[in-house]
């Protein structure tokens, strides 16, 4: 009664597809069918934010969206932030510089929430960064370096777009 269905979508700018049962959520589909294991699964019930990806421009919890619902959508995962074997993206580099990760498990979700925020609200201030990150849990860092990294990137992007 739950045969696999074909799901075609765009991931990180590339047309991709696979088969999955309708009960498969997007995070499992990305990891197991498309082998994009950068997206992490923490709580799997929408609380921790580790699985956050961007779907059609919005940050979403990939454990709360069925893969079949993402058919035809544009999905960006953490793998989309930097070219394979290329330099880190600006958010990733800022995380490294600011020590904004320790175990790193939550980091893909943090990065995708911040990537969506920086794209939608380039003028976001610290309060807005904190509000956006309230949906992402980190048990190592205490958040301060994550917020510092985010503010670095927002400021650098504003400076470069002003010139």
């Amino acid at each position, binding site marked *: 009664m739950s045969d696999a269905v074909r799901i075609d979508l765009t991931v990180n700018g590339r047309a991709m597809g696979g088969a999955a049962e309708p009960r498969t*959520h997007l995070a499992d589909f990305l990891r197991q069918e498309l082998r994009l294991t950068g997206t992490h699964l923490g709580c799997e019930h929408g609380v921790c934010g580790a699985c956050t990806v961007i779907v059609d421009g919005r940050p979403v919890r990939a454990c709360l*969206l*069925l893969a*079949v619902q993402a058919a035809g959508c544009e999905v960006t995962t953490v793998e989309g932030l930097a070219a394979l074997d290329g330099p880190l993206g600006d958010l990733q580099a800022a995380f490294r510089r600011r020590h904004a990760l320790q175990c790193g498990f939550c980091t893909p979700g943090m990065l995708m*929430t911040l990537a969506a925020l920086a794209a939608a609200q380039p003028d976001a201030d610290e309060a807005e960064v904190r509000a956006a990150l309230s949906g992402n849990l980190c048990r190592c860092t205490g958040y301060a370096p994550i917020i510092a990294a985010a503010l670095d990137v927002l400021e650098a992007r504003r400076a470069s777009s002003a010139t």
Partner: protein
Amino acid sequence: MKPAPFVYHAPRDRSSAVSLLGSLPNAKVLAGGQSLVPMLNMRYAAPDHVIDLNRVAGLAGVRIDEHAVEIGAMTRQVDLLESSELARRLPLVAAALRHVGHVQTRSRGTIGGSLCHLDPAAELPLVALVSDATLTAAGPRGERSIPAAEWARGFMAPALAPDEILVSIRFDLRGASGYGFHEFARRHGDFAIVAAAVLIELDGERVARARAALGGVGPTALRLGALEAALRGQQASRVGEVIGPALAALEPVADAYYGARYRRHLARVLAERAMRDAIGRAREAPR
């Protein structure tokens, strides 16, 4: 933490959605999925069929005219928050939405999903109740209107027949001159422990009409009829004296974390803050 198997249906129009719902046994309607999918993942719910409304045409969108705002049930919370016209015309809803989940859940979560899931501490059923909103449901026999006061039939039990879906919610804008919304939760984005919503109309410095409701104190959001009656005709500067006595008889639900006494305390404090905000805004409102 994986859902049990189900058959997935993605109807394209409202009548197919309704006829699927009426004909399939043990079916569940999927809106934004921010409450249902966790329940599926944890197998608290194990429907045989899931009917996804996300591809049904005509269920999302906001229509604003002179006297009312009508919001399609599948309108996403983020789209409501990003509408500057909605923030201007229906500021109570905009204020409440800032407390609903997180940016990642508001991307998908819908107003209709919140109203149908009907968590007793959820913000959107509370603002619908205090605003005297009207909900429209569609079923095999057509559409019908349901006043918000009759929407919650009990704990997480909306007044929908098993073969009906919610299609829209209408807020009447007349007479809503000042609003207030306050809630207390342990963490930003959690369901409220207690939430209070207030609408005030002033006649000079007297309260012409007060509407007030609480979330998180009972199995459903609670309209405070006794408080509203006690406030009518009161001097705006003296409403604080009325709130305590009017809420003394409140018997909030208790759970393992928050007892009835604590919730009653929060109810009084938050209702008073919401009332003061509402009066302040009513004073500034154009006549």
